[in-house]
C-alpha cells in the first residue's frame, strides 16, 4: 500500500485500473470513454494506462461510451466509464439498457448541475435523473471513499446474487478536483478482493438473443427478478464490506452514515460532501447542549428504508437537505425520506447549494435555527447560499 495525493477523479481511475488489471487472467478490461467537465481527468488517466489485457475506446458520445461498455461486459470483460451532467442525460437510454440487461459494470459520476443555464459546479440532479434506471447508487464524501467504493462496487456488481451496475458519485470540484491523501492498495490485494468476472449470460457461440421482445408476463418476471436482486443488496453489501476490511484493513461506511445520532432529537439528512459541513454544525450545537445529529445517505439505490427508520426513530425534528430539485415537487430525496420518518416528527425540506453554491457552516446553522423554532413544516424551501 502507498499513500498518494490524488484528486477524486484520479482516485476513481486508480481503482478502475487496479480492478481492470485484476481481470487480466480472465477476459480483461475494456471501456468506452468520452470527456466532460468535471470528470475528464478520470478518463484521461485511464487513457494513459497500458492494460496488460485491455482496451480503452475513445468514442464520439456518452451514449456510445455506455454501449461500448455493454459490449465489453457481455463478452466477459470488466468495464467502467465516467460522466456528468448533460453527458449523463445524453447517455440515459443506454444506462437503462445496461441495468436491464443485468450488466455488472461501474460508472463514476462527478455530479454537476444539469444545464441550461450552463454551470459546471456540483448538484446531485444529474445522478438522480437515473433514480429509476435500476443501477445501485452510492454518494461519496471524500477521495478515499471514492477509491474504496469503486473497488467495492465491482465485487458487489459482479456477485451472482446481484449482477447489477453500480454508479459511484462524487461531488464536482469539491472532490473531483481536490487532492487528498489517499491510501492506494497493492495490485495483489485487489487481485485477492476481486475474483475474475464470471458473467453467467456472457455471449459465446450459443445462439441466444440478448434483449429481444418480452411479452407483458415475461417483463413482469424480469422486473421482479431485478427488484429481488436490489432487495439482496444490503446483505451482499455487508459481506463485501467484511471482505474489504479483511483484505485492506479498513472498513467502509454502510448505506447510511449516522453521526451523534444516539440521542438526537433533531437530525439533518444530506448526501455527499454537504455532510462534512453538517457535522461541523452538529458539533457546535452539541457544545450548546442541543441534541442534534447528522445522517448521511451514502447508498441512494436501493434505498435503505429499514436503517433509516431505525436511525430516525427517536427524532422529532428532521431537516432533509437536497442538493437537487425536482421542479414542481421539491427535493428529490425528501418524499423518499418522508416514508421512513416517525409519524409525529416535524420534517422540513431544504434545497441548498443548487448549482454548486458553497454551503458554509452558517448556512447549515440557519437551517438548524429555523428547524428549532418551527412549529410546523411548510412546503420545500430553497435556501440560497450564492
Amino acid at each position: 500500500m502507498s499513500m498518494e495525493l490524488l484528486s477524486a477523479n484520479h482516485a476513481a481511475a486508480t481503482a478502475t485500473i487496479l480492478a481492470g488489471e485484476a481481470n487480466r487472467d480472465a477476459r480483461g478490461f475494456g471501456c468506452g470513454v468520452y470527456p466532460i467537465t468535471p470528470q475528464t481527468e478520470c478518463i484521461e488517466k485511464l487513457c494513459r494506462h497500458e492494460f496488460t489485457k485491455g482496451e480503452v475506446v475513445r468514442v464520439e458520445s456518452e451514449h456510445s461510451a455506455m454501449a461500448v461498455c455493454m459490449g465489453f461486459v457481455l463478452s466477459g470483460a470488466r468495464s467502467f466509464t465516467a460522466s456528468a451532467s448533460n453527458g449523463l442525460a445524453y447517455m440515459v437510454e443506454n444506462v437503462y439498457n445496461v441495468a436491464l440487461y443485468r450488466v455488472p459494470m461501474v460508472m463514476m459520476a462527478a455530479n454537476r448541475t444539469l444545464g441550461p443555464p450552463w454551470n459546471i459546479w456540483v448538484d446531485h440532479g444529474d445522478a438522480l435523473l437515473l433514480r429509476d434506471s435500476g443501477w445501485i447508487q452510492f454518494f461519496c464524501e471524500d477521495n478515499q471513499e471514492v477509491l474504496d467504493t469503486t473497488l467495492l462496487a465491482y465485487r458487489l456488481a459482479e456477485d451472482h446474487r446481484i449482477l447489477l451496475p453500480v454508479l459511484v458519485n462524487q461531488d464536482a470540484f469539491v472532490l473531483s478536483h481536490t487532492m487528498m491523501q489517499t491510501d492506494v492498495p497493492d495490485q495483489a490485494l485487489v487481485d485477492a478482493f476481486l475474483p475474475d468476472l464470471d458473467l453467467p449470460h456472457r455471449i459465446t457461440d450459443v445462439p441466444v438473443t440478448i434483449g429481444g421482445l418480452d411479452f407483458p408476463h415475461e417483463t413482469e418476471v424480469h422486473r421482479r427478478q431485478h427488484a429481488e436482486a436490489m432487495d439482496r443488496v444490503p446483505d451482499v453489501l455487508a459481506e463485501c464490506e467484511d471482505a474489504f476490511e479483511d483484505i485492506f484493513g479498513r472498513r467502509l461506511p454502510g448505506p447510511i452514515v449516522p453521526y451523534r445520532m444516539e440521542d438526537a432529537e433533531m437530525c439533518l439528512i444530506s448526501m455527499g460532501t454537504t455532510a462534512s459541513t453538517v457535522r461541523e454544525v452538529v458539533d457546535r450545537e452539541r457544545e450548546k447542549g442541543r441534541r442534534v445529529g447528522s445522517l448521511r445517505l451514502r447508498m441512494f439505490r436501493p434505498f435503505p428504508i429499514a436503517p433509516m427508520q431505525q436511525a430516525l426513530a427517536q427524532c422529532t425534528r428532521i431537516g432533509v437537505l437536497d442538493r437537487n430539485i425536482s421542479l414542481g415537487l421539491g427535493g428529490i430525496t425528501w418524499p423518499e425520506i418522508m416514508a421512513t420518518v416517525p409519524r409525529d416528527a416535524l420534517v422540513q425540506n431544504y434545497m441548498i447549494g443548487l448549482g454548486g453554491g458553497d454551503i458554509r457552516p452558517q448556512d447549515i446553522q440557519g437551517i438548524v435555527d429555523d428547524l428549532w423554532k418551527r412549529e410546523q413544516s411548510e412546503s420545500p424551501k430553497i435556501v440560497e447560499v450564492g
Partner: protein
Amino acid sequence: MTLEPALGGMAQTDQDRCDPLLRAGNTNCGGCGMSVGLNLLSHALETRKIQMVIPACCGIVTAGPYPWSAYGAPVVASTFASAAAVATGLACAARINGDPTRVICWAGDGGTYDIGMATLSAAAERNEDILYICYDNEIYGNTGGQRSSATPLGARTSTTPRGKTQQKKDILAIMAAHRIPYAASLSLGHPEDAMRKMNKALDMTGFRFLHILAPCPTGWKSEPAEGIELVRNAVQSGLYPILEIEDGIRYTLNIEPSMSDEDLQNYFEKQGRFRKENYDLAVIRKHIDEHWQLIRSRIR
C-alpha cells in the same frame, strides 16, 4: 481439400452451417428482402463463428419473443443508435482475448442513415474490426412505414403522403469517405457477386460496410414475389449502382448496367409507393446520370 460450395453457394452443402442464420419461426413478412439477405449471409458464413448486433428494427423483431431466438447465432439487441458501439465492445473483447469470432452489425436504413449515423461514423473512423451490413428498405418498416433519409425521391410514406421531395443519401460514398478498408453495394438479384463480397468482407479485418437494397413489399406496396425482379430493375436502370470501394479510393464497378428506361419505368410502376403525380422519370434519370458521372470519374 476444400469443397467448392455447390451452385455458387446457393445449395446446402457439407460446408454450410447445419443451422441456418435465419431459422424457422422468424416473423418476417413474405417477400422480405432482409430475409433473402440473411440467407445469403448464412451461405457465405459457412462454418465461421459470428456474434451479431442488431439495433431496434425489423431485424430484431424477427428473432421472436423471449426466450426464443430465430437466429442461428448469438445476437445482442442494441438500442436504435448503438449497434456499431456495442459491436465495438464485442469486437475489441474478442481481439484482446484472441477469439476468432467475427462481429457483424445487421441494421436497417433507419439505424444506419439516420439515428445510428454518428455511432457508425465513429466506429468506421476508428476502423473497428466490424462487418456492418445495412439492409436498406428505404423506410421505417418496423413502425409502419415512415420516411428515412434513405427513402427515395417521390416515394409516398405515412409521413410523406405527397411523396418525398428529397433524394436519398449516398451512403456508400459517405462510408467510403471514412477511408475504411472495404465498402460495397450488393444486389439480391445477383447472388454470386453478393456472396463473393460477403466472403471477402468476412475475411478482411478493420471496418467493412455492405449495403443491400432490400425490398419491403409491405412498405413498398409491391408484390412479395417480385422483390428480386425490382432489385434487378434498380440495378439495370442505374438507380442502384453495384460497386466496391477499397480504402476509400479504389473503385471497382461490378455490374455494368444497361441504363434501361424500361427497367426504370418498371421499377416505379410496380410499386404502390410511387404514384405518377409524385415523381418525374426524366428528373430521376437526370439524377441517375449525374450520380454515374461521379462514380465513373472515381473509377480508374
